[in-house]
């Protein structure tokens, strides 16, 4: 009888593969690579900060695409909304405190996420993809049109964030921006790890695999996805805000289809459905791009293309996905 006591039952069941310690190891790995990045490339911090901003965008794509199965080629709308929200707060309302700007970015991203979600979730499959393209293009056009707020195609300038905590100024070497970026990334990553384990995260994965089954369990597919879209918007918005702070300009490119498509490519490159995949994909893509485009500014696109093709051929689940699979296989033997 006693064996059936809830606590005992729980104790009898082997916990699954993941465990809290793996989470901490992951966070520690991110932190460690951040420190290594800082020490090894003290002169590339601007690039690295930009990478962090884009990592947030790609994480945000992962939330809807990798976890929920909603394909999107329009996620830059969320990122750009965050960037413009932070930039406009600073340039037009004098809100120059970096933390407040990040908050503005997150809020802007969340609102854009809500709008995108409301539209995109009305479609299925390819329809979704096209709706997302339409959304990002509409956002882009709108930002171009209200040039008095956004600076139009000349970009939004005059963003001058005040020093972080009133002490650390955003300088040429970009140290402050980098440290701020890393701190934000670690926080966001920690929260997303939690999220992906949570009942909500599980429900989302269920939706990706079979939405009809989820509905047959009495859960609302639309509401769940919309919620995820808003969360995803906040994550992208933080990235956009970070970008606005570190570059002090926001351009229309941050709302572009191109950026959206790149983000998706980075995600698939790293491996969908895993937070690590999103980070690894972005870092590999951007550093590789930076490296080859500096090495050969004229023909690097071909090499980039070859990389993508190579990944599909030799690591069809993306870099992280395939590595994890290999590791798993080896361990099982």
């Amino acid at each position, binding site marked *: 009888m006693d064996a059936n006591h809830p606590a005992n039952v729980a104790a009898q069941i082997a916990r699954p593969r993941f465990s809290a310690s793996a989470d901490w190891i992951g966070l520690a790995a991110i932190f460690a690579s951040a420190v290594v990045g800082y020490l090894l490339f003290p002169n*590339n911090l601007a*690039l690295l900060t930009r990478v962090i901003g884009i990592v947030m965008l790609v994480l945000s794509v992962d939330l809807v695409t990798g976890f929920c199965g909603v394909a999107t080629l329009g996620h830059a709308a969320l990122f750009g909304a965050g960037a413009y929200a932070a930039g406009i707060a600073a340039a037009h309302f004098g809100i120059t405190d970096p933390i407040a700007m990040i908050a503005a970015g997150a809020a802007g991203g969340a609102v854009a996420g809500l709008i995108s979600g409301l539209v995109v979730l009305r479609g299925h499959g390819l329809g979704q993809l096209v709706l997302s393209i339409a959304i990002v293009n509409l956002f882009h056009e709108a930002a171009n049109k209200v040039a008095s707020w956004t600076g*139009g*195609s000349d*970009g939004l300038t005059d963003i001058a964030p005040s020093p972080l905590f009133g002490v650390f100024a955003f300088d*040429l070497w970009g140290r402050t921006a980098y440290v701020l970026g890393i701190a934000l990334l670690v926080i966001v990553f920690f929260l997303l790890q939690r999220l992906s384990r949570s009942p909500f995260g599980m429900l989302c994965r269920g939706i990706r695999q079979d939405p009809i089954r989820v509905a047959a369990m009495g859960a609302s597919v639309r509401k769940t996805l919309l919620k995820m879209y808003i969360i995803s918007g906040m994550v992208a918005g933080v990235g956009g805000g970070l970008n606005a702070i570190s570059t002090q300009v926001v351009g*229309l490119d941050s709302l572009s289809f191109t950026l959206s498509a790149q983000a998706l490519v980075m995600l698939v490159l790293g491996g969908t459905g895993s937070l690590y995949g999103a980070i690894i994909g972005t870092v590999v893509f951007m550093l590789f791009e930076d490296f080859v485009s*500096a090495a050969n500014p*004229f023909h690097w696109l071909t090499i980039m293309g070859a990389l993508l093709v190579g990944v599909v051929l030799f690591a069809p689940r993306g870099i992280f996905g395939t590595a994890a699979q290999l590791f798993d296989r080896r361990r099982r033997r």
Partner: protein
Amino acid sequence: ETIKVGVVGPFSGPFAIQGKNFKAGIDAWMALNGAKVGENDVEIVYRDLPAANPAQAKALAQDLVVKESVQYLAGFYFTPDAMAVTPLLEQANVPMVIMNAATSAIVTKSPLVVRTSFTLWQTSVPMAKVATARGIKKVITVVSDYGPGVDAETAFATTFKADGGEIVESVRMPLSTTDFSPIMQRVKDSGAEAVFAFLPSGPTTLGFLKSYNENGLKGAGIQFLAPGDLTQESDLPALGDTALGVTTTFHYSVAHDSPENKKFVEAARAAIGNPAELSFPSVGAYDGMRVIYKMIEATGGKQDAAKAVDAVKGMAWESPRGPVSIDPESRHLTQNIYLREVAKAADGTYYNKEIQTFANMADPGLAAAK
């Protein structure tokens, strides 16, 4: 000692031809003037920025300054990219020489910015004068809906109206437009005597000019006025007869008749490989290099941005495009603007034939902004 110059431009991507022209202009300069200023070697470090992307522009500039330790930043095809970099200059102690980006306001963002290209105000205002001189009363403007297009429209309309002309309609079309028939129909229906147009050079200009012909506007006697971006030399082979007779105003024609230009074109064509690809960004780059060499000379190779910029204020020389000088106050280039017409040469190639000169134009855009 080696002095590094960081050049940011579109070397791949849809605008690669413009980046190629940057490089051709720079190579031409170095071929003609050597890679040494006094004791110092000059080395160019290129960074690719395929499309307008201020965040990346800033990251690249930072990378150039901090890691490559460049003493000069140059290039910049798009305005937002240049704008993104200006806040860095002071702290980095680096002057920036703009070889293309054409929005007037950039030079006001930092005292360390010098421009050797042109602004859309500079090239559009003379076109309004031409229209008035031709006795045209009603014009419709058609521009691409982005910064430079709006600049061109404003510049033209302001000047034309001040001279008593009438703008019957102002059309702004999305950059992505590919089919211009409906726009031409609209031009036709507007009752204007001439159309003032601006599109970024590239694939769409072909369709635009074709539509102009095919929809019978040319036949109906509606004149075509535009800044020279529309008849960029590299597009002329593709435009072919379609462009014949189109008149544009611009600061530079590859066919400009002067010994200085002959020398330049020869060197630049050798550098670019395909002679047909040479066009205006190359001359901005060529003159930009002249300015940078002067700066190096003035500072003796020491990094001192303010001194370097001061040294070129008021500098005047004979450029391949004609006589030019740097306005000491705005640090923008005062230059001649030419009215040109697309013509066919004896060897069957097309070129922009200069038919009228507007001498010593400063940037009217800066004046208008005040």
